């Protein structure tokens, strides 16, 4: 009996390309690419079937550093190009990578439609609230008052929330991760990949050069416990150093409030249990902002539905099934024809 030698198990480093990484030293992107390589190894993903497609920006350099297929395209259009690739070959496992400007400014329309259509791919939005590659202008996610080369006395326009945008577009998988959380990020990536349909992941990414520390208020060591909540399906929404804080619906109001177990007669039974299939809950979780409420991290919404690529492929299969192998000669001769002698 022949025993096939199993192919050597791929390590995280096997998913790293031979290209020299060109991000600024200390950039959050390093952590994300590392987490992705770990994810790939854990999944034993087939590098020849994995494709990273990106637009333009610091984040968009990502595909160059993965030892998979990669396509670094044009500003804002990665979602559209990825949609075409997925339609052409649904077997490919496609990851789109974009920054906040790429995804929500110039490419906002395409992000809207890739999520609405529910194309089966993963969309990773590296949010650093700034334009890095063009040297620090404020972005569509920058908070009001952001001082930048183009807004020297502070920006005046309201930022967009990537996750609320995604939910509004009809995304059926919405998650959040933090660049530095190397244990958690691969878990989020794995969930995103196993979700069938468009999976949207916002990653809080620190731009050490132009927007350093912009997320410190919930990612700093001392801030994490009280300002982040790790949401998990079926588990109570608890946070705080000793998990003594929880989220509940404020009695008599349609809003979420933070409570402390043991205070004012609050018990764990009062605390909401996370239901990732509940879009209303997901919307409220995405809207939470420290310090009043913690930043929700993890899989906030996951509610699979029919995908665009499957629907389209089914129509082609159906059309092919209807007749025998189609003949163009026959098609051209269908309908009125006449013969000239």
């Amino acid at each position: 009996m022949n025993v096939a030698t199993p192919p050597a198990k791929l390590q995280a480093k096997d998913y790293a390309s031979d290209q020299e990484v060109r991000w600024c030293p200390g950039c959050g992107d390093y952590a994300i690419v590392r987490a992705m390589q770990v994810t790939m190894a854990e999944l034993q993903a087939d590098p020849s079937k994995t494709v990273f497609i990106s637009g333009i920006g610091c984040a968009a350099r990502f595909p160059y550093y993965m030892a998979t297929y990669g396509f670094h395209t044009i500003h804002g259009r990665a979602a559209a190009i990825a949609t075409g690739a997925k339609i052409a070959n649904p077997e490919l496992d496609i990851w789109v990578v974009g920054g906040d400007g790429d995804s929500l400014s110039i490419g906002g329309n395409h992000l809207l439609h890739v999520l609405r259509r529910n194309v089966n791919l993963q969309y990773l939005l590296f949010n650093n609230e700034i334009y890095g590659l063009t040297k620090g202008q404020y972005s569509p996610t920058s908070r009001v008052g952001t001082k930048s080369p183009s807004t020297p006395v502070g920006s005046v326009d309201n930022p967009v929330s990537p996750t609320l945008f995604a939910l509004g577009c009809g995304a059926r998988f919405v998650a959040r991760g933090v660049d530095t959380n190397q244990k958690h990020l691969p878990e989020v990536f794995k969930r995103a990949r196993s979700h069938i349909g468009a999976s949207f992941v916002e990653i809080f990414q620190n731009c050490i050069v132009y927007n350093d520390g912009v997320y410190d208020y919930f990612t700093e060591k001392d801030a994490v416990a009280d300002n982040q909540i790790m949401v998990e399906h079926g588990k109570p929404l608890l946070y705080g150093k000793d998990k003594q804080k929880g989220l509940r619906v404020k009695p008599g109001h349609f809003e979420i409030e933070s409570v402390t177990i043991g205070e004012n007669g609050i018990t764990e039974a009062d605390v909401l249990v996370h239901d990732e299939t509940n879009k209303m809950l997901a919307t409220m979780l995405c809207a939470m902002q420290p310090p009043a409420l913690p930043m929700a991290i993890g899989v906030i919404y996951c509610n699979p539905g029919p995908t665009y690529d499957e629907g389209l492929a089914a129509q082609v299969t159906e059309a092919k099934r209807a007749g025998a192998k189609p003949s163009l000669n026959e098609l051209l001769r269908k309908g009125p024809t006449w013969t000239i002698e």
Partner: protein
Amino acid sequence: MEGSTAVDKRQREEVEDVVVRFAGDSGDGVQITGGQFTLTTALAGNDLATFPDFPAEIRAPTGTTFGVSSFQIHFGSREIRTAGDQPDVLVAFNPAALKVHLKDVPKGGMIIADTGAFTDRNLKKAGFTTNPIEDNSLEGYRVLAIDITKNTLEAVKQFGLSQKEAVRCKNMWALGLVYWLYDRDRKQTGDWLTGRYGKRPEIANSNIAAMNAGHAYGETTELSGEQSYRVQPAKIKSGLYRTVTGIEGLAYGLVQGTQAADLPMTFAGYPITPASALLHTLSRLKAFDVVTFQAEDEIAACGAALGASYAGNLGVTASSGPGIALKMEAIGLAIGVELPLVIVNVQRAGPSTGMPTKTEQSDLYQSVYGRNADAPLAVVAARSPSDCFYTAIEAVRIATTFMTPVILLADGYMANASEPWEIPDVDTLPKFPVKFHTEKEGFHPFLRDDKTLARVWAKPGTPDLQHRIGGIEKNYNSGDISYEADNHQKMTDVRKNKIDGIANFIPEQEVEIGQAGGEIAVVGWGSTFGPISRAVTNMRAQGKDVSQIHLRHIWPMPKNLGALLKSYKKVIVPEMNTGQLITVLRDRYMVDCIGLNKVSGQPFKITEIEDGIRKQLG
């Protein structure tokens, strides 16, 4: 009314060719009437060409001049090359149609007018102060003023349609009358009506009754004194024929091209007039390994097509000028990463929105020059509805052989027009199957073929060939990103040489009519083919030394073109733009060409080209 006193039943007069124009409100069924007349005429063995002309508004207010839709057909017992300069017969379903089209009808021409629609209200809407049928303004024309509306209502009474539905049958009444006028068989239209209204036989029967009544009206009653005609079948090359529109030609050609390349097609489009019809047509051809995708915008359509090519299908996108402008950045990426892509431009009058339903050929600069940086690609142009088929195949061949985007230029005129087409046996057409790269040894994504300079096509999913490509300049020897000066020079050169080198793989330019060398060459591209060809034939019949050259390959141009052009004393270039091909020809070959330009949204008339040639003959 001139000649109306004659009462003898006359013999049919033989005529060589005839131009009929139907005109009325968008809702009058003018296009359907024209389509049926076309098919019947084709089945009668005539050669023909058509020109459907629509208003831009979908349902313009009824009775207005800007809501007039028309359909012209030119048919004959000789070879027909254009839809005709002037109508011999104008069927005007309302005063507005008469107002818009009367100026094109020569004196002596026939005008069939539905007096039932010449109400005070409609006359006023069309801008008439008095009824042109009753005052003397139609003197010199043969006017058949008939209350078609009333006659139609009478004919369909027995079928119990609503007043509105009954009036709708009047186009078939008029068609029946024109069928009588030219001795056409009504069976084809009868069958078509039965099929079309299968679920509502009373509508089919009403329309057939209206058509028969119109025919009978001509044959037996009031018109028995009118001259009727016969047009003998044309001497056309023997074979099996059908009619084809430019859109059909493009769709079938793209299918044939992708089959010859052995690739599935991914077609991505965004609704735009007049290119959308290609999306509609291809979306019904899924069985031919065609996936169609209606994208969120023009940029996404081009992006998705490019993404599909990246994944190993042939990506195709289509639009008209403004949409092509939006696609241009993605086309630049396709040039940079050297992936095949076919971009169909169904040109229309511009700039900006311009006149979306009117034709023009003014996107040649955009195609050849319209990108940032040194970004060459191939450009081909179709000349007629049936030529769309062959040009589409050529576009696919160049795109896949040379790993390059190809712009295929058509225009609104040929897209909607139809002509008889000798149906090819596609099994005998050349094949050019794509060979994807699979060899790991020595692989990098920018390995090139020595002869074509095309890079290898290694598609995602191929084991062991993982690689990254992108818009950043690539190292010539590895495909890795490179900002090195010499390398950029080398890559820019190779991209240019690759496109220039396509000239070695396309046929030499032939002379369409006439010979190399001589007095005058008339050089054209696109849908001006018909009028130029007829004008040149006419001039030669008059003993003038005039030849016709018509380009399919706009970029790169055939290798012999420069020498060929220089062999004539004068070169005339008629174009439906202000002189774009002429710029390219002067730039390439230093030949001083003479422009003949028209930008009215209407195709050239034969006489306009003849006049232009005559002026140069001195």
